[in-house]
């Protein structure tokens, strides 16, 4: 209650207006109101849904999560209900409860992304975030987001079939994230979000009476340990594009959010920290509003400007 009253946190992402710049990241927040035991989800800037694919997916086998010193590794593998069930079951709750949402989409071929884009367009989904950290089955399973030509083709194809706000979510597992960002902008993206998880592996070794037992998990590394990498990526992207950037990676506190603003982000997404403190998003919104007021800024835009000067 009350945290959106004054509108001083209002954020504009290339025409996509959010009540505040705090968004929850894909894969950590479910599809709609799953966190309502902890926060009033409708007060968030937006939530990003779990990646949605054309067909439902079962996800990966074996161990799916492991904690690391400064975060975690996940190998969920895009388990999701598929677009049909999302539209049938999940969308209604989002609308009924007035939850602002961005739909995260993923596919294995450009055709699948195009299909998803068309469905989103038909259903008037206001904003989508394209997850490009997926293996391109037609290109030897190289990820779409690691090579600028295939990235351009993908984003451009989605653009031609979708009229809403198109956000492209970049992977940090590349040589030059600037080149990929420029390709996304050229292909017609309205905004860029960065970063997705980093590739990582944990090998847990247990030795009992000389017998070694190993548990290996490889997957996406997220959480506080990736923050410097993410802030760096946002800063470099900001130097080469003029569309808004949503910063993601290891955000746990208000200070982290300010750091991303200073690097050039217009908004942020919080992921892993929702697991640690499921009400963290709401807490940070309140603290951010306080911070703007106490320091005498007119609004969040003025704060961002000061942070970047």
């Amino acid at each position, binding site marked *: 209650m009350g945290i959106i009253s004054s509108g001083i946190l209002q954020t504009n992402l290339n025409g996509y207006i959010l009540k505040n710049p705090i968004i929850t990241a894909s894969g950590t927040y479910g599809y709609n109101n799953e966190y309502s035991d902890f926060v009033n989800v409708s007060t968030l800037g937006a939530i990003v849904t779990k990646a949605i694919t054309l067909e439902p997916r079962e*996800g990966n086998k074996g161990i799916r*999560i492991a904690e690391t010193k400064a975060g975690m590794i996940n190998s969920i593998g895009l*388990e999701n209900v598929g677009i049909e069930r999302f539209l049938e079951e999940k969308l209604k709750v989002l609308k009924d409860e007035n939850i602002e949402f961005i739909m995260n989409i993923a596919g294995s071929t450009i055709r699948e992304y195009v299909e998803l884009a068309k469905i989103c367009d038909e259903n008037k989904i206001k904003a989508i975030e394209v997850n490009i950290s997926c293996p391109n089955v037609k290109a030897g399973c190289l990820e779409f987001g690691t090579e600028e030509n295939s990235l351009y083709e993908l984003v451009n194809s989605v653009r031609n079939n979708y009229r809403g706000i198109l956000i492209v979510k970049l992977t940090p597992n590349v040589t030059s994230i600037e080149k990929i960002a420029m390709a996304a902008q050229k292909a017609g993206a309205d905004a860029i979000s960065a970063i997705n998880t980093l590739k990582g592996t944990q090998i847990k070794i247990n030795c009992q009476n000389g017998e070694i037992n190993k548990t290996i998990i490889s997957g996406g590394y997220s959480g506080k340990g990736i923050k410097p990498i993410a802030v760096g990526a946002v800063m470099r992207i900001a130097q080469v594009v003029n569309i808004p950037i949503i910063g993601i990676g290891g955000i746990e506190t208000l200070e982290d959010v300010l750091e991303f603003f200073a690097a050039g982000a217009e908004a942020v997404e919080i992921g892993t920290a929702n697991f640690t403190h499921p009400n963290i998003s709401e807490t940070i919104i309140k603290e951010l509003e306080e911070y703007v007021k106490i320091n005498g800024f007119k609004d969040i835009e003025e704060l961002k400007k000061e942070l970047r000067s």
Partner: protein
Amino acid sequence: MINEKIKKIYNGKIERIEKVAQTSYYIEINCQVPVEVKAGQFVTVYCSGLTLRRPFSVFSNDNGRIGILLKERGNGTKYLTSLKIGDNIDLIGPLGNQFNIEEKKSLLIGAGIGIAPISFLKKELDKKRIENCLAAGFLNKKEIPINIKVDKIYTDDGSNGEKGSVVDYLDELIKLYHPLPVLKTVANVGEKYCIATQISMEKVMACAIGVCRGCVINIKKNGSIVNAAVCKEGPVFNGSEVVWE
């Protein structure tokens, strides 16, 4: 506003913390949980500095206080056992489903620290005057918590009760808990003798509310094999529906 409902996140205070076995502790947290907690449900607690909250079965629940029984393992549990009376503790719960209590003679089986939810279940059955027998197995007598009431004890080394595994006791059975071999044996015995079994499963958890899909196991449902989140659809499953890895 539609959302003026109870938030499941509490800033609790430790009221009791006691060593109850060689490496196990009982922690009682005053957090004024306003809902009734059922046997089989769990809570998660924040351990300072760690990314993932740690899940623990509810062992007792009286007057808004949640009791957990925990065994020291790694950083999370060591942090918790270092806390003192009066310290704050950030707790979420109750989470997950519960044991389905039937008016039937029940056999309860717990191995190691898996005794926690089973002890709670026994208390509930006793309250309802449902005949039951709790058989528990431990490594040795030093591992047996002093604050539990059991009917039959097994130790691997025979230092207390019968020597052997608690599954030796299985000829008629039902509810139980803990490390997979015991769980699997129980499910198998149940299947063999056509006895309904309920099993409490464990998986590493991240969100603990069913959204991240990090804690899924395979279960049989309507003739096919599907994913089920231990934190949301579980932790209690029918022994016959679990697909063992």
